[in-house]
């Protein structure tokens, strides 16, 4: 940027600034944005490919391990596991893969919505029944809404 200032300053001392034409600015500018974002898209895809391959490998391993575990522990039931599972799927923000994650998102949204509406009054969420995937989507939208603080 400074090089430009320098140029400009040196030029302006000698002659009126040679501002580019509107058409040129628009052409170059738009091209610039397109190219940069295309570049970013390419890089991101390349990186993504690495991660996807790795994830596939790990999934394969996990499947094998899970099968073994299932065989060795057929008698232990695990009710509620989905609901109380403390582990947060690191990609849950974007995923939507596992039904469990979705459920908990729904729960969060319901609780947040109730809280928003009735404020600090004491309340107990007695029961939440899933009413289809629309809820989850709406929930995510609400979460993103916070963005509009701008």
């Amino acid at each position, binding site marked *: 940027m400074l090089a430009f200032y320098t140029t400009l300053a040196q030029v302006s001392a000698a002659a009126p600034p040679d501002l580019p034409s509107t058409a040129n600015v628009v052409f170059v500018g738009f091209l610039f944005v397109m190219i940069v*974002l295309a570049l970013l898209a390419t890089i991101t895809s390349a*990186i993504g490919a690495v991660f996807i391959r790795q994830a596939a490998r790990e999934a394969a391993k996990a499947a094998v391990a899970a099968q073994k575990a299932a065989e060795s522990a057929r008698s232990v039931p695990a009710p509620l596991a989905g609901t109380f599972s403390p582990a947060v799927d690191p990609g849950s923000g974007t995923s939507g893969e596992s039904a469990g994650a979705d459920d908990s998102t729904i729960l969060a949204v319901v609780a947040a919505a109730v809280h928003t509406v009735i404020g600090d009054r004491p309340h107990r969420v007695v029961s939440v029944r899933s009413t289809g995937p629309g809820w989850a989507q709406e929930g995510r939208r609400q979460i993103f809404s916070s963005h509009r603080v701008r």
Partner: protein
Amino acid sequence: MIDLLHRLYGNTGFGFLDWRMLVMWAVVAVLLYLAVYKKFEPLLLVPIAFGAILANLPTEGIVNKPASIVRSPETGEVVYVAAESGRVVHLNAVEKMMPLTVGDLDATTLQSLLDGDTVDGFGTGSLLYVLRREVPVAPKKLFELKINEHSFHLTDVLIWAHASGRVVDSSVEKGDRVVQGQPIGELHSERTGGLFHYIQMGILLELFPPLIFLGVGALTDFGPLIANPRVLLLGAAAQFGVFGTFIGAQMLGFSTEASSAIGIIGGADGPTSIFLANALAPELLAPIAVAAYSYMALVPVIQPPIMRGLTSMKERKIRMNRLRPVSRLEKLVFGVIVTITCILLVPPASPLIGMLMFGNFLRECKVTERLNKAAQNELINIITIFLGTSVGITMTGDRFLRTETLGILVLGVLAFGIATASGVLMAKFMNLFCKNKINPLIGSAGVSAVPMAARVSQVEGQKADPGNFLLMHAMGTNVAGVIGTALVAGFFLTMFGGAH
């Protein structure tokens, strides 16, 4: 006591009311109605509108600058000095735009200015110096005006007191040559600057927009974008709204700098608009900010007809693949790469891009939750209050009630329309080549306006096919638009920013 009552009355603000203020009150009422009852980006519009109330009341003590050094606005020769040391000078109680050159005054006013202090029609502003520009703009204006022993050109620049106070230093004399920015005198007063003078520093010094972006980054999930990087191109295409508006503004006669700042309204990104407007066209800050935030709220009205007009029902029914989950490491790597790439390419955008990705890193690294929360809440909320009111306080009638404002508002709508169309068309264009078809409805989300535009895509998609869920894909386009607009802002700053 009569005398006291009289003085009390004389010091109320009624004498400073003028029609512009009353018109601005109506403007404020409209803004408040839109914000409170129509929920048009209330978090910004309410502070802006309330700031505008204060700007259009005789609240001199709330925005005034502190007395300080007087600098020469241009390089030239001092032709008249009224700033003798010890003289008490004052400023209008309400902000007024004072005449810029001798040619803006009539001879009588000039005469009385030279004789005394107060001039009808210009309140009580004190003239300190008259300066002859080194390069006169046009020779035809070189009429000469002789008053008392002084001789003026119509193009001579008037330098007014910027604050009430006492002249404590007047280092130049008639005939001296001064360069732009040179200290030519000093005012001093026991009174400090007004509350908003200090708060506005956050805009003038370009602190608030990057800090808001820190919070925005902490609130943004780049996951959908990373899972489907093609949408970056949609975000890029939507920037054509910015360039289209730039052309329009140029054609309406705005300067190149102003056109850039107006064009960025099409980016639908509040802080970026404010950042660029402050740097390139500070006198247009208020209308640009108001347009940017108002139209963002109008997205659900402006976009759907354009989206439907440019797409066939078959296209609108395209279903898109579920997005793969993105791991923490991938998000972190993406963030760092975007930071490095964008800053290397457009260094002037680094405050925005740097803070955006820093906020996002705090969010995604999962080990700095305290800081993430602070960025998402305390910091962004407090700064939003200050940013909004700082913008609003610049909306004085003098500045806002001009034809330029009207032009900006019209251009703003245009910008949103073009951006929407560009995004949709780009998606259609990409479908010519790609195997995995893109639903063109998510192209419109490239205007940013997070998350409004993404929701519009989702709603329109479900109108065509109730089982179609486009939201996450549109969110990807949405955040791509944020990066794209920051790049465009950097591009404009590279091209037109930074005269000394």
